[in-house]
């Protein structure tokens, strides 16, 4: 992921093992329902956005021990909750990625 035109470095995006495992189940379910390519494209778009513009989501709550913010963002049919640590330009995803209601998943 390269930096933006004005020199801003991308955010580092880190996922937990739990998120990886739940994503595997979600993709398998999507494949079974004929929505595999849609979900895979959404996962990649979500990851891209988290690297360059994690602020696209709405704030959920402020995190206290290290100044950061938990946000929720949707890239249909996905919903992700993630934390941004602006000082470190770090985004972490430790809560499994879900799907929007009525998404068929």
């Amino acid at each position: 992921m390269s930096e933006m035109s004005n020199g801003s470095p991308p955010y580092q995006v880190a996922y937990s093992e739990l998120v990886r495992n739940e994503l595997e189940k979600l993709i398998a379910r999507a494949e079974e329902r004929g929505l595999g390519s849609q979900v895979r494209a959404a996962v990649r778009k979500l990851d891209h956005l988290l690297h360059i513009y994690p602020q696209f989501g709405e704030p959920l709550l402020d995190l206290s021990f290290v100044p950061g913010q938990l946000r929720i963002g949707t890239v249909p049919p996905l919903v992700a909750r993630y934390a941004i640590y602006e000082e470190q330009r770090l985004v972490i995803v430790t809560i499994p990625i879900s799907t929007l209601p009525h998404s068929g998943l």
Partner: protein
Amino acid sequence: MGHDFLGILSRSTPAQARERLGLATRDLDAQVLQLTTTVNGDNDSPEREAIFAYTAARWSESTLEAQHAAQPLDPMPELEELLGWARRYYGLTQGITPELLDWARRTFNEEVFLAGLREIEATGGLELKDFMDELEQEVAPRE
């Protein structure tokens, strides 16, 4: 607003752009916002990329200022509008409904969040590119 303005915008941090253009923060935000109403072309056009990069950097700058001042983030209307433009730039027109926000807060599990945080602190965490190809191979497409 000509090529010079866009050139400065695309090659500078917001602070550098303000200094080079001699503009206050809110005035530059307003000028960039005005630019969003006139740019045409593809999403990948240099003009749009410059506005997007500026908006993302402004948000980051405002967040850090608020954190350092131990104040809640309270962006000016111009910046809020730029953020809305940036969402549309990426086709993110579907907003978060109050029901979804409520669900997200109700089902937020602090223990799961902290366990993941500790794991990432200890291991560095996983990157999507580390496991997405593997997932796609494991789950053979049936479409």
